[in-house]
């Protein structure tokens, strides 16, 4: 340090200050690197205990599956849970029935057989030898018909009539008036009207079986949440982070194959992605992410396997039929005919977009096959010019010779919907340069749902996860009293066909009825369904079993969670 001269030119002092700052910065960086290497995150466990005591060491569950999920919503009540709920219950709860992931046929689970005694009565035979987790409040007791009956009544919102609106799966159990345990292993469902979809409703990932003790314990304490699933909660905090260990009394012998599941809950998608790239979680579900991001993750993790499969998340634009402009079928049809759904899907999803826009999930018995749809006007690339010419005629007949209509698209607040809507507008402008379409949004979920209910929109850009039953799905969207008929479309013939289908237990006849209704809806164009996006997930290569597992199931990420009981270390 100099002691003479102009102090402002005391370079040693300045240097000392900067040196000190540099040393501090280096020290902090070193501390960060040390902190990373001494992280206490879960590392793959060594071989764990056997799922069934006494099993040979080679078949004993081993390894730790590291799951990353969205924020867990409280309470942990599967009857009420919306988003991340299934990814938790998929590990610790079982369903009454399940759907085969390859052909979507109904298969037994906790209910091992069923008998349709009459159109309004179904008897379910509950499987014996299934035990709840060996912890409070069930303490490992055997599951019985009362548990199944209680669970179905809850999911159907029959036990809480004041708050029925909070139960999103209640439509799976339409017309059900009661579920009663007639003996220790038999549940009788009674309905006020036939509902052939009710069995598929029980195969919904989001309708697991809960113990009757839940009435008293509630669902706010994660340590008291129990099920019959392959894993039980060892530790879970209110943020959704925790560890699950093998249920030693799990009824499917030889399963699960992994000894432990750790859950990390992420508030943001970026943190989830970074965790997969940093190899601290074992799979990453990238549904509804742009193709460029999917590719970026692939480049960052070239060792990871990328799995894709059909998924029912349909992206669409829906007209509000109550608005005078869109009450005119010609305007709707004209706007629908000119849309190139493939171009819209490809632009956002690359190879992950399926080019047709089915009205019902394509793997269901009720769907007009995608291979048929793609030949229809509006979807067929070979007839695009003719479709545009037809659209112009329709618009002119409706009184808008140059397409000079003015309307707004209410855009939901996720990245894909503004992108889809911009492309739709651009396609319309190419055909009708005088058309005036504004994009209203992106709109957050609260006001979006409010405006949907109030009908205060012209068109809306949205997407929906399917239900487990094609007839219910179609009815939800297009019957005049459908819970997802946001555009207030109404056609008496469609209503009649939907009602008949729901009450028809013969699968072939049921499918034919819905297909008839679909033809009407296609011609009346209340909706432009552009495409559906395939589910895409990346999986760490050390796990085997995910690649064969995902199939048409429609419920996406939850399938990956259920697959946890099948996967094993390579």
């Amino acid at each position, binding site marked *: *340090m100099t002691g003479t001269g102009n*102090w*402002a030119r*005391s370079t040693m*002092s*300045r240097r000392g*200050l*900067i040196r*000190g*700052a540099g040393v501090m910065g280096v020290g*902090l960086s070193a*501390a*960060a690197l*040390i*902190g*990373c290497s*001494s*992280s*206490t*995150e879960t590392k793959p466990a060594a071989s764990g205990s056997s799922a069934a005591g006494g099993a040979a060491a080679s078949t004993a569950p081993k390894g730790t599956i590291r799951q990353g999920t969205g*924020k867990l919503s*409280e*309470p942990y009540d599967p009857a009420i849970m*919306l*988003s991340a709920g299934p990814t938790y219950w998929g590990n610790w709860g079982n369903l009454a029935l399940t759907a085969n992931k390859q052909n979507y046929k109904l298969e037994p689970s906790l209910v091992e057989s069923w008998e349709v005694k009459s159109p309004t009565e179904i008897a379910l035979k509950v499987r014996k030898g299934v035990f709840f987790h060996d912890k409070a409040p069930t303490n490992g007791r055997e599951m019985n018909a009362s548990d199944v009956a209680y669970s179905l009544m809850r999911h159907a919102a029959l036990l809480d*009539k*004041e*708050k*029925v*609106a*909070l139960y*999103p799966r209640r439509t799976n159990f339409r017309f059900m008036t009661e579920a009663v345990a007639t003996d220790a292993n038999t549940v009788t469902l009674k309905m006020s009207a036939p509902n052939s979809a009710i069995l598929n409703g029980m195969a919904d990932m989001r309708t697991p079986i809960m113990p009757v003790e839940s009435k008293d314990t*509630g669902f*706010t304490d994660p340590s008291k949440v129990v099920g019959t699933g392959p894993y039980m909660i060892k530790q879970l905090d*209110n*943020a959704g982070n925790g560890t699950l260990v093998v249920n030693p009394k799990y009824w499917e012998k030889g399963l699960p194959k992994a000894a432990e599941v750790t859950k*990390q809950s992420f*508030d*943001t998608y970026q*943190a989830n992605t*970074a*965790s997969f790239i*940093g*190899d*601290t979680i074992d799979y990453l579900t990238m549904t509804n992410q742009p193709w460029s991001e999917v590719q970026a993750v692939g480049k*960052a*993790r070239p060792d990871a396997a990328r799995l894709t499969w059909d998924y029912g998340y349909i992206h669409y634009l829906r007209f509000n039929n109550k608005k005078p402009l869109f009450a005119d079928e010609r305007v709707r049809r004209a706007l629908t005919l000119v849309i190139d759904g493939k171009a819209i899907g490809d632009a956002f999803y690359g190879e992950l977009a399926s080019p047709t826009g089915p009205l019902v999930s394509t793997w269901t018995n009720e769907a007009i096959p995608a291979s048929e749809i793609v030949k229809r006007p509006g979807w067929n690339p070979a007839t695009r010019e003719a479709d545009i010419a037809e659209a112009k005629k329709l618009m002119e007949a409706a009184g808008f010779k140059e397409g000079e209509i003015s309307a707004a698209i209410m855009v939901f607040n996720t990245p894909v919907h503004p992108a889809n809507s911009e492309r739709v507008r651009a396609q319309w402008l190419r055909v009708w340069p005088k058309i005036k379409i504004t994009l209203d949004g992106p709109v*957050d*979920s*609260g006001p979006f*749902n*409010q*405006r*949907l*209910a109030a009908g205060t929109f012209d068109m809306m850009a949205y997407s*929906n*996860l399917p239900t487990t039953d094609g007839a219910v799905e179609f009815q939800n969207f297009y019957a005049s009293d459908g*819970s*997802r*008929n946001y555009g207030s479309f109404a056609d008496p013939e469609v209503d009649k066909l939907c009602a008949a289908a729901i009450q028809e237990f013969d699968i072939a006849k049921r499918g034919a009825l819905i297909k008839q209704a679909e033809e009407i809806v296609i011609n009346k164009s209340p909706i432009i369904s552009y495409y559906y996006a395939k589910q895409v997930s990346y999986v760490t290569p050390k796990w085997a079993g995910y690649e064969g597992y995902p199939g048409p199931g429609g419920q996406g990420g939850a399938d990956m969670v259920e697959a946890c009981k099948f996967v094993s270390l390579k």
Partner: protein
Amino acid sequence: MGRYIARRVLALIPQLLIILALVVVMVELTPGDVIDSMLGDSGQITPEARAKLERSLGLDKSLPVRYVSYLGGVIQGDLGVSITRGRPVSDMIQERVLVTTELTIYAVIVSIVIGIPLGMAAAVARGKVTDYAIRFFAVLFLGIPSFLVATMMVLLPALWFRWRPPLFVPLDKGLLPHLFSMLLPVMAVSLVFMATNVRMMRSSFIDVMQQDYIRTARSKGLTATRVWFRHGLKNALLPTVTLIGLQAAGLVSGAVVVEQVFTLPGLGSSMHSRDVTTP
């Protein structure tokens, strides 16, 4: 002094009442209510079902009635029960407030400990490369919001080095791992405030260094360092200290956003849109 403090504390009461009223009104005015948020895209419900739900949740009462009921609870220390979570709000706050407080305090300390010396260095090296470099980074970090910095801190190391910052480690699992897990979140929160402190400190230090008493001190033969720290710093700190007090509120709001990016179990990650309490 005692009387002054008592007056200021008493003045807090009407201020808190006004803030509480404003918050309640603003939540009420936000489009879409807690029921819309809870229902999500589960489908439309009939007006009767909605009315029943509102009644069961106490939302059918008028806003003034709900406000007075809520106020009565607050005065008694009861913050109500969260409609969406079904748990007492005070429990939820208690679980999480420590993490947010800790993050905020660390951020204040870091923004002071790094910001003030850097501001002084920039002032002392005025017009030189050091000064320009420090000011460049200060302006850069002033312009970048903390949530963006946080997101980049999480994503870029993962993409470039396949490294992800450590997840939050509770204090009872070890002090050092806990501090390491807080390091990047603290940096993300503190950067913008550090930048403000740098600029304020630089500016006030330059002012102070031009004062007559500083020249007098130097002419008496005191070393530059002694002049800076013993005479200059104390006076130059005044505006910065005032600023730090004003920054506190901003730090808390920055913290709750950054918590979500780093998945810290603080108040930020427990926030839910439009959640209100049952009256």
